[in-house]
């Protein structure tokens, strides 16, 4: 094997693909060949570094120098100055406010993060299984197959306190136990990679940056619950994820880490990759099962739960991508280690997608229980353009809208539930004071009205009615009775909708009415929108 003196990592996630990062990569390879440096430098395409706003990002090892916003035109300078002469091109270093840094991991953006799920993302070549193996990939699986009984695996996951990261936050170990105990010879493991929650892209990042950690998580789950077959349902829009995952599955099979008699243990496990076709509701677990069966992705009534009656009526374990990415580390390092991270009620880390009016937009992984302020101000770098913080919505469009008074709230499942919000999928939308909450409510409700599958009446009619009510309020002709109607409708939907979609539509609505009530009131009875946003928007649409 040839040894290269230096490795150059460049991100190739889809966030960067769109920013001419393809051109950057090919120019780099070309320049290295032209200058005869191929023997010294190895170019590796990795997943996303998380700081997408600064992308494409390039890291040069062993020095560990990070370059940001690299364009094809910068390559010649990097090659001549850094690669040939060992001098840093300061112009391309990371800058945020007054901070400038040679190594991204030393910036405030990274310092408060804790990388468990994203441990390999941006460090390895996701298309090369050996790089995953070098970073302890499949070590959890090997340990499990070598030394643990299925019951012991479930006990470890239960003791770790890991809760589902797909939205509902159900304790993972308990779900595994239900599935193990459900009667039936044929069982399935399904990985939910439909990621449709607006403002979320963490699953894609993991799929693109470290697909083997998901394969490992699914195989361990299969061993624990007694399944030999797994499906992963990847959102149809995520072409790169689909391609990388298929390739990863093929490599795992080639290396004998999937298939028959894995590592000589007698355990068989296979994974089939399926593509979604553009329906938000298919992220809901029972809708996803219908879709996997080739049907319309309409949710089923629960109970029975998938643990008992899942894919083709067989006991099925469904977990989110991020949930499964925690499994390998938990089994390598143990439940106690996992519990030492995060808050006592809610152990571990959470990946957040920061979007909106925030300086450092991108993906971060933090210990549960970190405050909202630390995320927004320290990691996120605060609100840009001299504006002020107004609202943060956790959990995506179906999550709650929090205000200034919540900035010191610890961010974890129980604390967010206390204020009527949810952790959801880990989207975090930050909004500054130039935006109007009524206008945002219109955007949320338009989304739900479009994505409601129409199967149950409360959700189908409720979303449309709510949308009409906020449109009316935005136009200035709303009255106090309309606000009351929104509250009543929300409560009805919470109680009577068939699935989580209809049940969570009220979360943003009710938190907005609770924490931004004055702003809604201002719009009533011909009142004006203080930010001027509604006036313009309503004119444009009607």
């Amino acid at each position, binding site marked *: 094997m040839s040894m290269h003196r230096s490795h150059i990592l460049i991100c190739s996630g*889809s*966030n960067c*693909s*769109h*920013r001419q990062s393809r051109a950057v990569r090919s120019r780099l390879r070309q320049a290295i060949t032209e200058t005869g440096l191929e023997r010294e430098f190895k170019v590796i395409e990795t997943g996303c570094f998380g700081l*997408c*706003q600064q992308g494409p990002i390039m890291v040069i090892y062993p020095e560990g120098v990070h370059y940001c916003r690299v364009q094809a035109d910068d390559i010649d300078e990097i090659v001549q100055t850094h690669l040939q002469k060992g001098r840093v091109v300061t112009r391309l270093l990371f800058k945020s406010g007054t901070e400038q840094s040679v190594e991204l991991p030393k910036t405030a953006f990274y310092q408060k993060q804790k990388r468990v799920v994203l441990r390999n993302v941006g460090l390895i070549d996701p298309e090369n299984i050996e790089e995953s193996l070098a970073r302890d990939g499949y070590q959890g699986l090997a340990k499990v197959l070598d030394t643990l009984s299925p019951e012991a695996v479930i006990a470890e996951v239960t003791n770790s306190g890991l809760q589902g990261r797909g939205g509902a936050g159900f304790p993972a170990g308990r779900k595994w136990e239900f599935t193990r105990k459900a009667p039936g010879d044929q069982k399935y493991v399904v990985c939910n990679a439909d*990621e*449709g*929650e*607006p*403002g*979320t*892209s963490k699953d*894609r990042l993991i799929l693109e940056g470290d697909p083997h950690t998901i394969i490992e998580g699914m195989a361990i789950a299969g061993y624990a619950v007694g399944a030999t077959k797994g499906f992963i349902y990847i*959102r*149809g*829009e*995520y*072409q790169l994820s689909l391609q990388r995952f298929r390739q990863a599955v093929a490599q795992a099979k080639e290396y004998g880490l999937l298939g028959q008699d894995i590592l000589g243990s007698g355990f068989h496990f296979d994974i089939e990759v*399926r*593509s*979604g*076709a*553009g*329906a*938000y509701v298919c992220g809901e677990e029972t809708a996803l099962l219908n*879709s*996997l*069966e*080739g*049907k*319309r*992705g*309409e949710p089923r009534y629960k109970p029975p739960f998938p643990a008992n009656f899942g894919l083709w009526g067989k006991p099925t374990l469904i977990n989110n991508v991020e949930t499964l990415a925690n499994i390998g580390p938990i089994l390598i390092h143990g439940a106690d280690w996992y519990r030492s991270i995060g808050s006592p009620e809610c152990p571990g880390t959470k990946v957040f*997608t*920061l*979007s*909106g*009016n925030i300086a450092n*937009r*991108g*993906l971060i992984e933090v210990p549960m229980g970190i405050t909202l302020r630390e995320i927004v101000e320290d990691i996120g770098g605060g609100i840009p353009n001299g504006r002020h913080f107004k609202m943060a*919505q956790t959990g995506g*469009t179906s999550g709650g809208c929090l205000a200034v008074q919540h900035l010191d709230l610890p961010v974890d499942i129980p604390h967010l539930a206390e204020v009527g919000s949810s952790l959801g999928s880990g*989207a975090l*939308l930050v*909004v500054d004071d130039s*935006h109007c909450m009524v206008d*945002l409510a219109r*955007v*949320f409700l*338009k*989304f739900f009205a*479009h*994505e409601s*599958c129409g199967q149950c009446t409360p959700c189908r009619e409720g979303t449309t009615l709510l949308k009409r009510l906020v449109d009316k309020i935005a136009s200035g002709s709303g009255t106090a009775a309309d606000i009351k109607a929104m509250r009543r409708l929300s409560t009805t939907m919470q109680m009577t909708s068939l699935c989580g979609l209809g049940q969570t539509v009220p979360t943003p609505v009710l938190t907005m009415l609770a924490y931004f009530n004055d702003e809604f009131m201002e719009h009533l009875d011909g009142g004006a929108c203080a930010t001027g946003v509604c006036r313009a*928007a309503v004119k*444009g649409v009607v």
Partner: protein
Amino acid sequence: MREWVRQTVEQFGRDRHQLLEILGHLQRGRSYLEKETLLAVAEELDLPAAEVYGTATFYSLYSTVPRGKHIIRVCENAPCHIDGAAAVLAAVQAYLGLQVNETTEDGRFTLETTSCLGICSAAPALMIDDDVHGNLTPESAVGILKNLA
């Protein structure tokens, strides 16, 4: 056409649960699923035509009506919205002379809106066929369209 459907069905397996993969494959490289295609799939899989049709229309990535050569999907969810998605959409509409869900007369472009494309950190965003573009301004969005073949 019949033969092509049969081959596709054979490639994926004559199973109801392969229906989405089959439909996805059949639509690849063309703008929509013709009625005849759907009927042929129903026959091959031995399913009622209404089942196949009902499934195809449930998902937004499939179309049962003709669309343009390029499908442009502008994201209109909250993260993109607060970063100026409305202005991007308006610019694209003006450039193409289209409302949402319409196709240009020459059959080159169909304009749709979409929910989150998962690149909110580079909002506002749009997707053209399989390619995602982010950090748009109204001008850069139109610039991208101008460069399309």
